[in-house]
């Protein structure tokens, strides 16, 4: 693509490039599924109409989407805080981290779903179980990436901190956290995807309310169209969440992207 001068034209072109495939697929499915008569694969048109009826007209947003969003946010934020704090500590204490590695490695190797029965046993089917499980399972990639990020701090910078006697809190906020930020964000993006998956699973097994609960409940009651609307909403939900996360990351890591662009520009 030729670089365009006008920023609006550039944004428009970028958006078009981003959207052509989904638009094409949706249009194609709309047309092709028109004639479907299978009970299990209703026409996309029907699903779209029902999505409007159930989720927008019928209050599905407040009843099932909002609880999902809030619980995901609560679990994810807890995962970020715990992952960054533990990761920073372990990153700064290599001996301890080595000693704990068999433990951390086996914990992260256990598939999240396997922990569900244990969580149900300890926390029941309510909100606590859901949030704890989302937080616990999505914490690992953040923690492991934070360890790497903290270790990437150059030894010279370590001497700078020593010789200028930086306070521990200043070291954390102004040295280790920004230095690790690119890796923390990479871990958090993975964690967000894991978090959505865990959210759906815990909702399927937990108390009413939430996307996962809605999908399972619809399926159990042979409301196939409703079930498909749940999938549609879940897809859009995941997409928007990821887009929001990227926008946030871009804002925070502005310096990093600019630096990378700058050094690449200088070397080429």
């Amino acid at each position: 693509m030729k670089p365009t001068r006008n920023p609006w034209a550039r944004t428009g072109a970028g958006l078009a490039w981003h959207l052509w495939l989904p638009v094409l697929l949706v249009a194609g499915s709309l047309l092709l599924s028109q004639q479907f008569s299978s009970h299990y694969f209703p026409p996309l048109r029907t699903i779209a109409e029902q999505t409007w009826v159930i989720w927008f007209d019928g209050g599905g947003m407040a009843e099932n989407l909002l609880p999902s969003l809030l619980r995901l946010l609560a679990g994810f934020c807890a995962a970020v805080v715990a992952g960054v704090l533990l990761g920073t500590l372990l990153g700064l204490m290599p001996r301890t981290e080595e000693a704990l590695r068999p433990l951390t490695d086996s914990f992260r190797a256990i598939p999240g779903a396997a922990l569900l029965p244990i969580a149900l046993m300890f926390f029941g089917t309510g909100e606590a179980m859901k949030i704890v499980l989302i937080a616990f399972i999505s914490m690992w990639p953040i923690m492991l990436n934070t360890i790497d990020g903290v270790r990437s701090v150059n030894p010279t910078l370590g001497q700078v901190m020593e010789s200028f006697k930086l306070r521990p809190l200043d070291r954390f906020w102004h040295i280790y956290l920004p230095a690790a930020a690119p890796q923390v964000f990479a871990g958090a993006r993975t964690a967000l995807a894991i978090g959505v998956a865990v959210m759906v699973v815990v909702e399927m097994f937990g108390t009413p309310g939430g996307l996962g609960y809605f999908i399972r409940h619809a399926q159990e009651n042979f409301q196939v169209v409703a079930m498909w609307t749940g999938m549609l909403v879940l897809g859009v939900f995941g997409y928007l969440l990821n887009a929001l996360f990227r926008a946030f990351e871009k804002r925070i890591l502005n310096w990093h992207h600019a630096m990378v662009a700058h050094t690449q520009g200088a070397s080429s």
Partner: protein
Amino acid sequence: MTDTNKAAPEPLLHIDNLGFSYGEKEILRGLDAQIGTGELVCIVGPSGAGKTTLLQCLSGLRPATSGAVRFRGRPIAGPPAEMAVVFQDYSHSLMPWLSALDNVALPLKSAGLGKKERQQRALEALEEVGLAGSEQKYPWQLSGGMQQRVAIARALAYRPAVIVMDEPFASVDAQTRADLEDLTLRVRQHLDITVLLVTHDIDEAVYLSDRVMVLAGKPTTVADMITVDLGRERDQIETKADPRFAGLRSQVYRLIRRPDAADAALAASGR
């Protein structure tokens, strides 16, 4: 011409029989020296002589394995608050996520200064090193020489009694290097600060110093402490054209070369 070393200034830093070993390997042995308030002393020696190790011992970043370093009469354990270090590797000693101003101001935050005073001091320091107008730039947007100026400004803003510089101009081009040397002389004159500078460049050492500490031998010892009688005003062209400059330069060079020459002679006779 003023003679700076007739009346020795009150010693600020005592190096007292200092030794350093990595395990079995002895790097520094029995170093003795005194550095007076307001002096500019260059530590010069061949590469691999342990210059950086010595500097780390002097700045409290690394404990000596024998002997002691005393700052204002007291043995140092850890970096003294009145000392600031400028590192060779400017690209890694500055924080790429902070502007030049914030890089300079961060140590002041840890020192407990309020936001206004931090900003004020950082701006002053950046102006002192000729970086007024580049405060908001990130380090990677600046040239190597300018980055090292930011590092010097950070040290100045800290208002130390001593600035310790580890091969600070080793990785910039010749013209920038001369500019930074003159900046160091000017700042030192202006702020009346003590400077300890490590270099492997003999010309640089003689050009900048009141006294040159020459390191040589294996393990490294102080071969000599040479007083540079060239006055406080130095000039890249005139000072370096002075016959006394050439004389001092040769004197340092001979001291540094001698052990290597001896080694070579030994190796030749052994064959």
